[in-house]
């Protein structure tokens, strides 16, 4: 079952070397560091990183981000091959920065997956070990402002706010109900990963709920929720 959850975004700029001499968005980096630090401190059997990838598949848990794919000049230190998909690579890097040395799993999810498929994948992921810590790597809409990578879409704010509220309230059913089609239109590359999270937590609640059998919402601790560069970044921890 899921014993801890951290949610982080996956901008390449979280790979410190990619931003050059400047530290970009230090408050976001700090929030991610805190979230992942709390996750690994839960002492699970395995940390499962889940994030968008070209297809739904498990990746080599020892893989890393190939930063040279984003910054070719940075290949001097040798390339990581095969490089993980961005979200999994960012997650792996955050675990490294947190000093995590324990067992890992790396699970990619096709960002076009239906909500139902995501929830099912989450339920499966929750069972890969008795105690699974989940590092959910995904982003909200990339269409938050006119300067955003995907320009401005007025529906982005409500979509992001909905995701944020679902996490804050521990309302996994609401998270699972995010509209996949709208998410795609809004370039919310983390929608699928968030719904894997919903499925993983809901599986625990239905399968292992105490007497009475009622789901107990687990409020999330939102550490960061903003779109300083036009992409919505959500950082949160769920203590289960």
């Amino acid at each position, binding site marked *: 079952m899921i014993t801890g959850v951290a949610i982080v975004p996956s*901008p390449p700029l979280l790979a410190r070397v990619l931003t050059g001499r*400047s530290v*970009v968005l230090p408050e976001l980096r700090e929030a991610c560091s805190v979230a992942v630090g709390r996750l690994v401190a839960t002492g699970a059997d395995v940390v499962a990183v889940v994030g968008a990838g070209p297809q739904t598949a498990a990746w080599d848990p020892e893989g890393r981000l190939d930063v040279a794919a984003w910054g070719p000049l940075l290949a001097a230190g040798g390339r990581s091959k095969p490089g993980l998909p961005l979200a999994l690579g960012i997650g792996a890097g955050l675990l490294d920065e947190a000093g995590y040395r324990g067992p890992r799993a790396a699970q990619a999810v096709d960002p076009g997956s239906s909500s139902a498929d995501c929830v099912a994948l989450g339920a499966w992921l929750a069972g890969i070990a008795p105690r699974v810590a989940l590092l959910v790597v995904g982003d909200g809409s990339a269409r938050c402002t006119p300067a955003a990578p995907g320009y401005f879409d007025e529906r982005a704010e409500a979509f992001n706010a909905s995701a944020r509220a679902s996490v804050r309230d521990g309302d996994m059913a609401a998270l699972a109900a995010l509209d996949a089609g709208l998410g795609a239109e809004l370039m919310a590359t983390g929608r699928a990963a968030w719904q894997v999270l919903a499925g993983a937590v809901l599986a625990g609640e239905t399968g292992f709920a105490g007497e009475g059998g009622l789901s107990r919402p687990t409020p999330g601790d939102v550490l960061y929720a903003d779109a300083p*560069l036009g*992409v919505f970044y959500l950082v949160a921890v769920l203590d289960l």
Partner: protein
Amino acid sequence: MGRDPAGGGAGTREPGPLRLGTREFGPRERIILAIVNRTPDSFYRPGVTWDEGAALARVDEVVAEGADILDVGGVPAKPGQEVTAQEEIRRVVPFIAAVRAAHPDLVISVDTWRADVGRAACEAGANLLNDTWGGWDPALTDVAAEFGAGLVCSHAGGLPPRTRPFRLWYDDVVADVLDTVLGLAGRALRAGVDPARIIIDPAHDFGKNSWHSLEVTRRLSELTATGWPVLLSASHKDFVGETLGAGIEERLAGTLATTAVAAWLGARIFRAHNVAETRQALDMVAAIRGDLLPVRMVRGLA
């Protein structure tokens, strides 16, 4: 002129640090030599730092803009009214002393061909002898050795100081440049100049028509391949103006383009009037080459 009949030229070497004054510059650093002329009649913006107060203020400015070395000259390169050694000393030496007092670690170069001037400048705190006229006065080499100063070994086509090229031709100008500057470097080594303080300079415009200067620029890698640090002195020169049909005030873009090409081909020292612009151009080349981390990268990475 500029040949040493008693010995051969310096050979090639591994690129190493350049040591000038208290500073040490690595082989992948790009060094700016900022021009502050103590003349009333230099070719670019004549007289702008003729006044000592203005000149000292200009020093502070170029240091703030990223200059590593100051190049102080008291005699224009072009022909004109005679400037005696005594007058040259009067123009540059007290100024060098004042700069040294204000900037203890700034590398100071003196642009002169005269040993007497070089000696007085070193006594006042100069660290580098910019012998633009290609070793016309061999005793200048001995001054560099005596004071532990650096020496720029230049190619002026054998012309006497303050003369213009008149129908000069070369079978191969780059070969002639290499022969001359390595010959001067060899002479400097034999005189006891520290090899870590020797610079070579093809000296654009000096003893060259503008085709020759373009050729030297295009084939600058043949100079940098020697391993000796190469100085580019191209700022606002006639070859830029003639190439572009640009007046003296319209040569910054051509100067920076030449600077970028030379930096790409491995030049390490850049003599400049426009320090801030030159530093920016050099940083851009350095980042393209992978020698310098960019300041802040975010585009497409959010």
